[in-house]
């Protein structure tokens, strides 16, 4: 789990490549990448709870929604500046993370997934019923302050966000904290049986995940400038987040980024041929094929290829260190 120079070189290369991208690709492609960036942030957030600790959440938009709604309401209804509303939104999302933690203290597996799904549905109902004058009710909100203008700026903003959050969580997950969280998904009782307080570990994981979801949700709403509850608290949105993390490679940080880009571009490129919901059949099919071939996702395929390449290179250099 040690850090190597090439890890940082790869991250640096990826970030540099992305920052140069607007010079070479069209605005339309940039807009697609913006959505991929946000989807990657949400998938990373999901991955911290579900990929790492094995508490599969089906209600992640609950957390994203808290972040999005808090900053939207504060800026639009109360004139709070975004410099203040975004941090407040992130804090509110972290409080929401503690709400999701409550069932995780007692139940896991499909029961936990169902409870989180209920949280999302509850949130959808609540924003329509409670103070629709603030939340915009069923119609949502529009005219929310945007932070950027134009595809290029939107791209730089969303990618910077992704770069900071992904490198940050990646570094965090390479510490002993990440190892302990992975161990929870394998055998939680054995983690407790190794002298670690699993409640404390889960609390920290849920707070980190909620932090990422809150930052992502808040910036997303200030990118879009509008908020539609039916699109946000939507089972399709949940599945897109989960599938992005899973086909990329759960519990890896890099995997969810790969998965998010793959899914976003797949759906985008299929649009001219399959404008309707049929596209989801293709993406379901791709996901199914991938799971049959390699359940650990693209990341595992890439890593297997990399170690094969290294083994071949080592064989070619006789006398070299294997």
């Amino acid at each position: 789990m040690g850090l190597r120079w090439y890890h940082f070189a790869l991250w640096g290369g990826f970030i540099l490549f992305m920052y140069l991208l607007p010079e070479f690709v069209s605005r339309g492609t940039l807009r697609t990448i913006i959505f991929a960036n946000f989807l990657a942030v949400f998938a990373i957030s999901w991955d911290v709870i579900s990929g790492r600790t094995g508490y599969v959440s089906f209600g992640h938009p609950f957390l994203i929604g808290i972040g999005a709604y808090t900053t939207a309401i504060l800026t639009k209804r109360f004139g709070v500046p975004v410099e203040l509303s975004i941090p407040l939104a992130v804090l509110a999302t972290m409080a929401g993370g503690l709400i999701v933690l409550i069932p995780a203290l007692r139940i896991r597996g499909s029961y936990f997934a169902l409870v989180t799904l209920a949280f999302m549905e509850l949130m959808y109902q609540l924003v329509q019923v409670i103070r629709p004058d603030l939340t915009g009710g069923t119609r949502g909100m529009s005219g929310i302050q945007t932070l950027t203008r134009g595809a290029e700026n939107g791209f730089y903003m969303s990618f910077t966000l992704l770069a900071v959050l992904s490198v940050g969580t990646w570094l965090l997950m390479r510490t002993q904290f990440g190892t302990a969280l992975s161990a929870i998904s394998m055998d939680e009782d054995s983690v407790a049986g190794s002298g670690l307080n699993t409640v404390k570990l889960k609390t920290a994981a849920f707070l980190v995940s909620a932090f990422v979801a809150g930052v992502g949700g808040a910036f997303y709403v200030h990118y879009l400038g509008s908020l539609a509850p039916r699109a946000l608290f939507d089972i399709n949105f949940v599945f897109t987040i989960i599938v992005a993390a899973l086909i990329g490679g759960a519990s890896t940080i890099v995997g969810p980024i790969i998965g998010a880009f793959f899914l976003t571009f797949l759906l985008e490129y299929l649009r001219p041929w399959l404008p309707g919901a049929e596209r989801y059949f293709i993406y379901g099919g791709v996901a199914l094929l991938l799971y049959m071939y390699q359940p650990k996702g693209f990341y595992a395929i890439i890593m297997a290829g990399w170690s094969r390449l290294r083994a071949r290179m080592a064989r070619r250099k006789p006398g070299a260190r294997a």
Partner: protein
Amino acid sequence: MTALAVRNLVKRFGGLTATNDVSFDIAPGQSVGLIGPNGAGKTTIFSQVMGELRQSAGTITLFGNEISGLSTPGRIRRGVCRTYQVPRPFHDLTVAENIRVGLAPNSIWQLVTRRPDHAREAEIALGVGLRETDFDRAPTELSMGDLRKLEFARTLATGARVMLLDEVFAGLTVGEIQVVSDLILGLRRDGMTFLMVSHDLKALEPLVDRVIAIDQGRKIAEGSYREVLDDPDVRASYLGGQG
């Protein structure tokens, strides 16, 4: 001072009394065998000592401190740790990482900021007889004997001074039983205190100073290995109704 003292321990599950007024002491560095037929309540006692089950009555003290009110991780930090009948390694972590979880500090801040102590991981792994080539392997690639060693390693990593071994010889070949026995004897020489459950009484004999026999949750005999095995109640309990 005793390493582990259990006083009037009672555990009821509804109408069933799984542990019935059991008391025993283990001095530091002593090794005690806990025997009894299937369902006698041996593992239930282990679970209560570790805090995985709360006793209905009675007290448990570790090196003079009452631990009955502590959580499982709290008890482990005081120096008691157990192994399971079936080894339970973290299957997607490497051998070294499995030991790392045992060594890990119980503070989120320290978990994030402190670097893993690779030297200590290696020392523990080699100490239980794992090889350096095993460090980066997955537990699924290990033999049953090596999995037992890994369990010992993770338990030792927690800083245990009292080890509870549950069916430590289950699933091992004759050769592996010898290796694990030698490991236990080595740890005894270093001052480790043991309470061990085993159905393999022959393998238990050279490892223990004393044996406690229980049946239906009640202690029926305590003494040297020979005394307890010659006890008519113990013989009757092992042979069931035919005795």
